[in-house]
């Protein structure tokens, strides 16, 4: 890249200003103004998300906590090699996929609640 051919670089700082729309729903306003009711809504969302996260984490902890004991009891290096080397990765990815679906569903349900739409 020689200086003649390179396009002129411009440093643009700052985000374009956006007009802040008024909240469309009353519950949304409650949340934004941090009223007691709005706080309760956010807490309920957090609880459902934390529950999903803790579910995955508990299963992971249970498996990771018992596997070393199991390996020590069986004392088979080939088994350890096969399980740790190859069998662990698909379940890890599946657990992640399940969690994302669950978390996004929680958020959709929450949005419905806020917008006052009935859950299907």
């Amino acid at each position, binding site marked *: 890249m020689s200086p003649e051919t390179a396009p002129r670089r411009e440093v643009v700082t700052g985000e374009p200003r956006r007009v802040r729309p008024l909240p469309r729903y009353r519950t949304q306003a409650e949340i934004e103004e941090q009223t007691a009711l709005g706080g309760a809504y956010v807490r309920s969302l957090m609880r459902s998300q934390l529950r999903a996260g803790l579910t995955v984490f508990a299963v992971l902890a249970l498996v990771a906590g018992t596997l070393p004991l199991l390996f*020590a009891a069986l004392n088979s290096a080939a088994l350890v090699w096969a399980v740790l080397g190859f069998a662990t*990765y698909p379940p890890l990815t599946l657990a992640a996929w399940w969690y994302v679906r669950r978390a996004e569903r929680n958020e959709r349900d929450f949005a419905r609640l806020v917008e006052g739409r009935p859950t299907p």
Partner: protein
Amino acid sequence: MSTPDHTASWVAVALVVLATVLVGGFGLRISRTTSDFYVASRTVRPRLNAAAISGEYLSAASFLGVAGLVLLHGPDMLWYPVGYTAGYLVLLVFVAAPLRRSGAYTLPDFAEGRLESLHVRRLVSILVVGAGWLYLVPQLQGAGLTLKILTGAPGWLGDVLVATVVMVAVAAGGMRSITFVQVFQYWLKLTALLVPALFLVLAWQGDGRPRVSFDDQFAVFRADHPLYATYGLIVATFLGTMGLPHVVVRFYTSPNGRDARRTTVAVLALVGLFYLLPPIYGALGRLYAPELRHGGDADAAVLLLPARVIGGLGGDLLGALIAGGAFAAFLSTASGLTMAVAGVITQDVLPSRGVRHFRLATVLAIAVPLAGSLLVSRVPVADAVGMAFAVSASSFCPLLVLGIWWRRLTPPGAIAGLLLGGGSALLAVAITVSGAVTPPGWPHALLAWPAVWSVPVGFLAMILVSLATPGRIPPGTNAAMTRFHLPEALTSARGAGRER
């Protein structure tokens, strides 16, 4: 058997370095704005971003270290790659989306945004720079080892080469160019292990499938308390991933919290795919390069196998491919870490901000670990990385998890947890590396694998001191919690204007 031909390896390393600089240069051309420079304008879509994250994450410890450890100590060491992967799952379920929504670019940003305290920010900055440097040293040392084995160059040359390329690439192009470099390097790393592995397995079958024995290992684990050491490893890697500076910075390049989550799933798949390969090298290494168990350079197993097993021109070419992949591993992780550490130095150490100061910070960020890698004696690559994970798990993990999910966290609590958890882990690591406590006995085991006790210490200190100082709960806590957890559908119109 033949000694590898050095020309092919030199060419491969030169090509990777050249490609990195060129792809970085391409990024530089389109990296127009300050926002591009730091966070790729937050527009990196999940799939591209996942490849970039994976490319950055798969370091020398993964590319060379895991196979070396399996060769040396047996299959128990495969807990390392399992932990590196599972760490992303823990990151996903507790941190990913809220961290993105917090709008924090670095961990110090998160700490200040959540706790509204400059003291916490300073402390986190120090720990981030420390952990980043701790993680950079083995990357540079691995590069030195690789270049020495493959080309016969003096040991320091690889360290200096990687440090220089990283400095140029990061300082010139910033985050956007690094994103493209890392996507390219993920696929390069995967290919560089996959293709030789196929040939090696074929050669092994041609040999009549000799049985690999793991029974003759002279030390099952490096500890005399193998079960404790395994748990130490599990805790450190599962919980430490979320706090690694280069991992955190990457999340900010996602457009929003939902994409940050989806990106993480793709990362798990890509990282898991890559980790299917090192166990194969470890097992074949025991068969074809058993003498490495006694030499000390077990990290070289991956590099030596093609010449050993296949030999001739084919072996040289496959060896060159692996050499190129190994260099991609050093370059990508080192660039990501340098980017993250330099970001913190720019914001919290140097007097004024701006791209010029970022470039100065880049020099600082890489020069210190380079000096360290040249001065400190070599610790096995995966071990050194494991120590960085232990420090991160004991300090940043409590800060992130409690910061995101617990409203009663206070600045004094955070400081107590960071100092007691992270500080004690750091101290334990320092004592282990200095060699003051030697292997047989519990003291060494407890200090070499500190995470089992230092993570609870960090969490407990943070919780107890926070409960003792209820008057110090930051006034903006509820607003922060709302920002972290509210889905984009309900905030997008406001959130966009609020971020930097």
